[in-house]
């Protein structure tokens, strides 16, 4: 039973990770907490759903189409919302992204309707059994895709020119500008990647749960627990935090009481803020004189 819940926790951790990576990347470079990230997750799920419905595309094609759509949406949001906010006070920025979140929720209700929909895929009910653990095929896909994306993101940030420029911008934005790094391009790219990742997350969970315009709200507040646990702006921290919260939540729900499911992430958040508010995985780098 333990391993069954552990597996569910890993699947949940994957979703939290895909969600939180964008949140933490955007914070690291734009210095902005995107309260509308949950709505991007919701749009990813709906785009995949409608791509499958309208083009009768198979699940993989519709996920890819949804991802492309999300990257485009990320580009638009960066240009239309985040960029004009640059230089304003934090309060203005936070209120604006909360506003964006409400706006996108209502756009979702207008376009997709207020009622939850079910995304039925041909293999949603297929599951495999290894050593007493039942593994749903869709959940296995989630794990595999997340692992591939984490590796791809790592490779991108370590080896490519844009990836290195993103790291440079997150470490010292002014120095990055002084080196001639085009910061507008880097921030646009960051939001596009973040939106793409969370959109894939939405498309991946769509066949498991109901898809609705308000699905992003709870996911987003849990993801805040993840990124704060990992340290805002810290990419490895977001990954570790995602799996810690996912596994803790799933084990508690399965072994203690399912009523406590939603309590766990916030309990983790409270303890993280009390004991190590800079994040479990952030080291303070001392400046040399």
């Amino acid at each position, binding site marked *: 039973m333990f391993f069954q819940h552990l597996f569910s926790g890993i699947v949940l951790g994957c979703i939290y990770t895909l969600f939180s990576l964008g949140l933490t990347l955007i914070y690291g470079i734009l210095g902005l907490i995107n309260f509308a990230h949950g709505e991007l997750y919701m749009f990813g799920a709906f785009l995949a759903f409608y791509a499958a419905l309208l083009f009768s595309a198979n699940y993989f094609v519709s996920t890819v189409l949804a991802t492309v759509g999300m990257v485009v949406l990320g580009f638009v949001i960066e240009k239309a919302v985040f960029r004009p906010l640059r230089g304003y006070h934090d309060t203005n920025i936070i209120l604006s992204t909360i506003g964006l979140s409400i706006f996108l929720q209502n756009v979702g209700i207008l376009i997709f309707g207020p009622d939850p929909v079910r995304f039925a895929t041909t293999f949603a009910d297929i599951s495999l059994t290894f050593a007493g653990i039942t593994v749903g095929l869709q959940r296995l896909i989630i794990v595999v895709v997340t692992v591939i994306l984490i590796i791809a993101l790592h490779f991108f940030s370590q080896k490519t020119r844009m990836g290195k420029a993103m790291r440079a911008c997150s470490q010292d934005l002014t120095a990055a500008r*002084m*080196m001639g790094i085009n910061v507008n391009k880097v921030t646009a790219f960051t939001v596009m990647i973040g939106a793409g990742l969370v959109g894939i997350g939405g498309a991946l969970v769509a066949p498991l749960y109901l898809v609705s315009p308000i699905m992003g709200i709870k996911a987003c507040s849990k993801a805040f627990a993840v990124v704060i646990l990992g340290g805002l702006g810290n990419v490895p921290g977001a990954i570790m935090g995602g799996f810690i919260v996912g596994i803790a939540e799933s084990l508690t729900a399965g072994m203690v009481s399912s009523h406590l499911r939603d309590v766990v992430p916030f309990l983790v958040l409270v303890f993280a803020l009390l004991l190590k508010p800079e994040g479990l995985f952030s080291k303070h780098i001392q400046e040399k004189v």
Partner: protein
Amino acid sequence: MLKVENINVYYERIHALKNLSLEVKQGEIVTILGANGAGKTTTLNSIIGVTRAKSGKISFQGIDITTADPSKIVEMGLAISPEGRKIFPKMTVYENLEMGAYVLNSPQRIHDNIMRAFNYFPVLRERSGQISSTLSGGEQQMLAIARALMANPKLLLLDEPSLGLAPLLVKDIFRIVKEINKDGVTVMLVEQNAKQALQIAHRGYVIETGRVFLEGSREELINDKRIIDAYLGGK
């Protein structure tokens, strides 16, 4: 080569630079001296484009760069080793150098420039794979200068390269700056360490509370009584 004409810079309500003008000619080392808060760093930051002048004009090789984006300014041949070094702390020495060459697109040229940087600063070759926050202060300063050289600048802006370094190291760094200048790079050197700066500079400006207070050749400045009293520690 570089002409700054009557620029005014404000931070909120503080008038940081007041009608400041100066000029750098090809091949020179020009030093800017002045006390803390006089506006030296603001001057350099306005030239590289991360701080904006409200009025006045900055031109480089005859082209107006007053409102140009820093990425364009660096592409044109200006580079800076900023105040406080501002190296990328979690990146390796090698990656920091790569970031300095961000505006160059050819991997071959980037590689050549890294080799040239290693020739100026051999210690960086040994530290190449090291995370740069683990370097000593002097090594970080060398990295900041080497990183600025990576973009093949025609004019190199150095903001207080001697700050916080041991006297022996300062001497070393100034020797290398002189060498870089001999190799054809024009240098604009902001310093509080007037004695050292005037040893290698051809000309200098003294800035006080956002204005040019004095300008002259090396000899004129070294022998100016006001400079001797205020910046060279008296007789």
